[in-house]
């Protein structure tokens, strides 16, 4: 992309320009070249480490530290190693656990959060800004402060062994719910609510107006919020590392604790393969919905 555009901007200047025009043209062209150099730096910055992970994931373990920048010694062995359970790793199971925990966390946060968001975006009631403040404060709450009290509580409840998914889902709500409400409130506040009134005037019942007019309009915002909540839950590590058991271990914990064939040898290529598997679905989602996600990420934060 960069190369192509640069060549088009470096086309030889046609004769017939005055000297002033020529200077203007050149400074403009330099600014453009600088911009594309900056853009190239930005793209390399974001993608190079990720690219290196993917290249290593497909590289034979004997060539772990090969430095050629393109794929060499391509193999799928690392993915087999990542999924093999022979060395005490349960990556495949962890993927399932993470999906279960992520989906339930997202659904609960959305079900609870959508009501609060509607109220905060649409209604006037006493204590509204206190509620907003509480939700904001919750989002700033340090996760590590949950660990000690919940550790003891969950031990007493007998949730610290077996397949007690709630021991992971409940703490996840603490960050997924504020996140959901903020993003949704910003989305809902931007919706053309006057359409709802028009529909009512045209003879819709309140339920119909909501279902047929507002819900389809709100769908992208709801969907984006759900994606953000799911990603937050999927990426969580601190709480999962403390509260998960063998039956509920999440992918982030599994990857952090990945062990190789020898005790002190880090299985780099297998870990990179596991990292690729964990990341690629997210990246595909992010690429498909990038516009919506960017607006979801920045919603509210900047709307003066």
């Amino acid at each position, binding site marked *: 992309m960069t190369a192509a*555009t640069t060549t088009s901007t470096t086309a030889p200047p046609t004769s017939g320009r005055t000297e002033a025009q020529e200077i203007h043209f050149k400074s403009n062209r330099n600014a453009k070249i600088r911009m594309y150099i*900056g*853009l190239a730096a*930005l*793209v390399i910055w*974001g993608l190079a*480490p990720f690219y*290196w*992970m993917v290249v290593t994931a497909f590289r034979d373990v004997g060539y772990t530290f090969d430095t050629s920048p393109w794929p060499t010694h391509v193999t799928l062995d690392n993915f087999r190693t990542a999924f093999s359970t022979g060395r005490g790793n349960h990556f495949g199971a962890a993927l399932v656990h993470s999906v279960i925990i992520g989906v339930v966390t997202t659904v609960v946060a959305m079900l*609870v959060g959508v009501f609060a968001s509607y*109220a*905060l975006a649409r*209604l*006037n*009631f*006493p204590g509204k*800004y206190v509620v*907003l*403040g*509480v939700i*904001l*404060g919750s989002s*700033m709450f*340090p996760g*590590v*402060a*949950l660990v*000690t*009290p919940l550790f003891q509580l969950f031990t007493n409840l007998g949730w610290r062994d077996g397949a007690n998914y709630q021991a992971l889902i*409940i*703490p996840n709500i*603490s*960050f997924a*719910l504020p996140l959901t409400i*903020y*993003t949704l409130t*910003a989305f*809902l506040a931007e919706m053309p609510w006057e359409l709802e009134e028009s529909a009512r005037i045209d003879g819709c019942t309140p339920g119909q107006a909501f279902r047929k007019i507002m819900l389809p309009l709100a769908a992208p915002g709801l969907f984006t919020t759900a994606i953000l909540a799911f*990603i*937050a839950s999927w*990426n*969580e590590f*601190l709480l999962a590392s*403390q509260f998960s058991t063998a039956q509920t271990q999440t*992918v*982030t*914990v599994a990857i952090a604790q990945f062990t190789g064939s020898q005790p002190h040898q*880090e299985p*780099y290529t297998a*870990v*990179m393969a596991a*990292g690729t598997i964990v990341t690629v679905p997210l990246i595909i*989602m*992010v690429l498909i919905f990038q516009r919506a996600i*960017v607006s979801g*990420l920045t919603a509210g*934060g*900047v*709307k*003066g």
Partner: protein
Amino acid sequence: MSAVAQSTQGSTKKSPPTKKPKGLNDAQRRQGLLLVLPTLAFLAAVILYPLVRAVFDSFKKDEGLDPATGLFVQGGSAGVSNYTHWLLQQCGNVDCPPGTLGAQFYSAFWVTLFFTVVSVVVEIGLGMWFAMIMNRDFKGRGLVRAAILVPWAIPTAVTAKLWFFIFAFDGIANKLLGFVGIPAQLWTSDPTAAKFAIIIADVWKTTPFMALLILAGLQLIPGDVYEAAQIDGATKWQTFVRITLPLVKVPLMVAVLFRTLDVLRIYDLPAILTNGGGGTTSLSMLVIDQIRQGGFNNASALSTIIFLLIAIVAFLFIRFGGADVIQRPPTSKKKDDDAPTRGQAAQVGNPVAANATSTGA
């Protein structure tokens, strides 16, 4: 919290004029409270209860052997001894011996602060630069946006493992340094290199988020402001300092606030990338280490200290730093100018910042 309380003063008396009859307004009030009730109940269960319990526990003694005296200690009230243990480095009646967790408090405190200041400053600079590049017209917008979202989407645990590989002794980072004649570093154990390994990984992962927030702020600045500045003969630097910076101040400060709080509770990166090597044990890691040693009440005191630290920093940012996280209609100037009829919806800072990385880092 008090900042929030202050900003909420007068929210009721400033409600926008309404044509609706009073009965409807009452209904709206009841409905509003009813709708936020489940959320408040959930937050009380998952945040308020643990917080109160941690504070309560932090004044109780841990059962077990006293590391200083070697005597068995029964439970019971501890007074403030769990706090003096960390803050004044007292283990029983003596100073905490080196090597104990208590003695690591100030090293963890300063290194966490170091991460915070360096990471956030670098992120502001880089994020600003990225945002200004992206704010122009160019081809391939989709590719650039994708490139910038990739580090954001990767789980921090995977990021840590990825940089652990990049920073391995035989890894690509040392190879690249070798090309420019810099000797290979021990990135996960050297006291200097390990700190910068954490910062580099953190900056890589979170600058995109910063850039996106700043970019969204930049896009709100009307183009004619710049045209006017150009006609008046302002230099590029003047334009940046006098126009761009003041106009992106609020979104920038909101982003800085959330990133600062994020790094203050950093856990994932140092726990996985260096495992505390080279003096990179952060405050959050110290809590977990203390829990592993079984001192729950002591750990509660430390997590309460972290909570207070974060609350104080948040308060300072909101009160004095201009991080207007709850942008209520009466206080938001731009809305009054541009879109006076935007409605009474509260515009709020987005805590995705807090989750740009996971809760831990």
